[in-house]
């Protein structure tokens, strides 16, 4: 049922993600992706007029290298390790999405309705993507982390603040997915 070129099983994937986090701890670092956004802001000079970005961003270069690797990994996985058999959703999910005018995956990772060539000509779609990004960037920095920093690293270290943040992730996600998405699409 599972194949190397299709969807990897959750238990294999979860195990490797946990191992990645532990490996970074062994390297003397902490696993967290959203902090790279702050580092990048500093690297392009945001520290000139804002204290929050005035720190030694070069000490975070190791994490930018992790991100560079992640980008290469994404390229390898989509171009050389996929046969188009993945993203088999619950049929109910597909029915709901179709009703909202969002195309079924049929092996694609992302809907054409959001990132397809035609969709990117639509000011509405561009606004959605930009706004979504702003919410992700603002929210992760305000909340002090994202899925990697809080849900994986923080919960693994039994941190109460991380549990609170993860509850927040789901409050926001459920409101968006159940109430707002049907209004937006």
């Amino acid at each position: 049922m599972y194949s190397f070129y299709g969807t990897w099983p959750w238990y294999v994937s979860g195990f490797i993600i946990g191992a990645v986090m532990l490996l970074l701890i062994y390297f003397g670092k902490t696993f967290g992706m959203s902090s790279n956004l702050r580092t990048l802001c500093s690297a392009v000079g945001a520290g000139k007029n804002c204290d929050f970005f005035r720190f030694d961003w070069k000490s975070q270069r190791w994490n930018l290298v992790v991100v560079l690797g992640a980008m290469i990994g994404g390229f390898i996985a989509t171009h050389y390790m996929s046969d188009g058999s993945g993203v088999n959703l619950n049929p109910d999910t597909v029915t709901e999405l179709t009703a909202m005018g969002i195309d079924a995956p049929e092996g694609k990772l992302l809907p054409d309705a959001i990132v397809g060539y035609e969709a990117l000509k639509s000011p509405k779609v561009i606004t959605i993507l930009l706004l979504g990004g702003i919410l992700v960037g603002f929210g992760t920095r305000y909340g002090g982390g994202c899925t990697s920093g809080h849900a994986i690293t923080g919960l693994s270290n039994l941190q109460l603040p991380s549990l609170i943040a993860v509850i927040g992730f789901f409050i926001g996600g459920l409101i968006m997915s159940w109430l707002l998405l049907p209004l937006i699409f």
Partner: protein
Amino acid sequence: MKFIKFLLVGIVFGIVLTKSEAVSWYRIYEMFHFQSFHMYGIIMTAVIVGVIGVQLIKRTGTKDITGQPISIPDKDKGWKNYIIGGTIFGLGWGLVGTCPGPIFILVGAGFIGIGIVFIGALLGTYLYGILKDKLPH
């Protein structure tokens, strides 16, 4: 040379998040609608592996690669910024289906549209930097 290990870890991370489809907008929608166990299974397994590993590190006093004692920093105390910031991030996650790691991974995979999400995420981070002192923490 010292960066090679980080590059390799990043490549593995990018591949596994893509192949597990945690980078997929569809999987995030399915997760928030409780229509599949897949994403919950991934997070749960990663956390179980993480809890066991962190406990082993703490109890055995394992040193890191440079021979320094390992200390995993505790998160700052409080709850307001975690619940409010977390909820704002959740709204974005539910809308565009990408947490920060997958933004980078999908840009690397060649999704131009996610490049717009990336620009937005930088803007959002900058916005927080400017407004930080006016927000409840």
